[in-house]
């Protein structure tokens, strides 16, 4: 697991910065042209989001340049913040305290440590098997039976989504694909770009022509028009980036589709939790976007699938696919 900033990476980072410059200019032009109060609020939020994007991409690039350790640390930190938002939103009790301590300060670092060491076998079972068993054991030792299964499930679910699933993103750096050695960082970049572009374009298409709501009970902002427009745009852009991946153009299209669909599913599922708890966002860490988890929900759901498909096809050459 090692990589260098090659020519392709340089190109794509330039592309990202170019895209942001364009977005900032459009945002500035829009803020000059709008008159009505209602529209103004939307444009202000848009500009806040663009400003936050600059910061997020800055932090992401720095961790990238540092190398795999930087990326692991960054995503580990993101997991901690996401878990903090999740735990703050759901209700936990006094008796959950020590189990939560283990979740934050033992399981989360251990998960990223296993990936960093490249211990694939341990990294994929730590939380689904061992944390799954540990959480109810520790809760039982605490001696409080009220809402027992409920409390155990909440903590297990938080660890799965905020730690296990997010950790699949930097885990891409451990893949070591034949013929693509020392270039795995571009795969992580590809996942992040497609998932985030899908979110961004679903938002833009939804704002422009969104009418028919997909699941009105969960989110008034998720419309069929936004969904189809956003996914199609992200898939087209993802396909056009095939040259930075080990994929053929067709494979890049299918991978982008998988990422965009899972990303949408992630956004929808996490909205259901927020809706149930009566809030709009998980937090207010990122200006205009809400919390870390609001920005990462699409990665939580798409990263594991993206990782495993890539691994089955390009590393493990799964016998079902390669007879």
């Amino acid at each position: 697991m090692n990589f260098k900033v090659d020519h392709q990476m340089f190109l794509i980072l330039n592309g990202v910065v170019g895209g942001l410059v364009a977005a900032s200019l459009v945002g500035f032009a829009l803020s000059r042209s709008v008159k009505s109060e209602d529209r103004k609020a939307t444009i202000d939020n848009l500009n806040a989001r663009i400003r936050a994007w600059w910061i997020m991409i800055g932090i992401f690039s720095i961790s990238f340049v540092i190398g795999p350790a930087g990326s692991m640390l960054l995503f580990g930190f993101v997991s901690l913040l996401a878990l903090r938002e999740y735990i703050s939103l759901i209700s936990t009790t006094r008796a959950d305290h020590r189990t939560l301590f283990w979740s934050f300060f033992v399981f989360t670092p251990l998960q990223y440590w296993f990936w960093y060491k490249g211990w694939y076998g341990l990294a994929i079972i730590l939380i689904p098997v061992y944390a799954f068993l540990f959480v109810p054991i520790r809760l039982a030792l605490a001696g409080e039976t009220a809402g027992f299964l409920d409390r155990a499930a909440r903590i297990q679910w938080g660890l799965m989504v905020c730690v296990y699933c997010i950790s699949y993103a930097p885990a891409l750096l451990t893949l070591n694909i034949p013929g693509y050695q020392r270039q795995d960082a571009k795969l992580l970049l590809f996942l992040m770009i497609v998932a985030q572009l899908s979110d961004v374009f679903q938002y833009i298409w939804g704002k422009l022509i969104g009418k028919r709501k997909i699941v009105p009970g969960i989110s008034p902002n998720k419309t069929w028009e936004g969904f189809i427009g956003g996914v199609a745009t992200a898939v087209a852009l993802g396909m056009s980036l095939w040259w930075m991946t080990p994929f053929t153009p067709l494979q890049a299209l299918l991978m982008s589709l998988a990422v965009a669909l899972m990303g949408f599913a992630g956004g929808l599922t996490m909205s259901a939790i927020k809706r149930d708890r009566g809030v709009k966002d998980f937090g207010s860490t990122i200006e205009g976007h809400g919390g870390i988890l609001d920005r990462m929900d699409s990665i939580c759901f798409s990263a594991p699938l993206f990782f495993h498909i890539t691994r089955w096809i390009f590393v493990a050459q799964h016998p079902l696919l390669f007879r």
Partner: protein
Amino acid sequence: MSALSASIIAACARGLAGPSVRWVNCRPATRQRVYFANHTSHLDFVVLWSVLPRKLRSLTRPVAAKDYWNSGLRKRIAVNAFHAVLVERGSKTAEGDRTAAARNTLDLLLEALGTENSLIVFPEGTRGNGLEVGPFKSGIYYLWSRRPDVQFVPVYLSNLNRILPKGEFLPVPVISRVVFGPPLKLEKDETKESFLEKAHAAVCALREA
């Protein structure tokens, strides 16, 4: 050195508590104030102090219980880093000594206020469960009756009990909220009962803010 360690501890507390801060009909100011808040965790004064603007921090001293904070590492944190004023708690002193102890405490607080400092106090006197705000002890009234020129600012802290509940020594990160309310408006001849009632209501009112 102590300012640095206070800043480091405050930064850690902010990392754990990720506090969102609101000032409702009140603004940060360097004038002398007594911030009085509900009490659910040992982290309370650290978090409250850490969300104040930098230039107010050096002027603001927390008031903490002597029986807990007066030894070892705790003392170093409270006294050396935060310049806390340590006071005896009424319930921990023998019945006969109550009045003397209370007078002694009041003198300590007046001295700590001096001519330019502000204080952070927790008038419940003990940590609650985070659900209700317990009844206020009368010390805060006597403080006001001696220094009516100082602004009394109510503060509501939420979720801090989930970070470090009573009886636990290891913290868990949970996002908290700190809400500052408008300074108490008081009559010149406010009685003890009505003062404590107004102060208590002012803190509770911020719960929904």
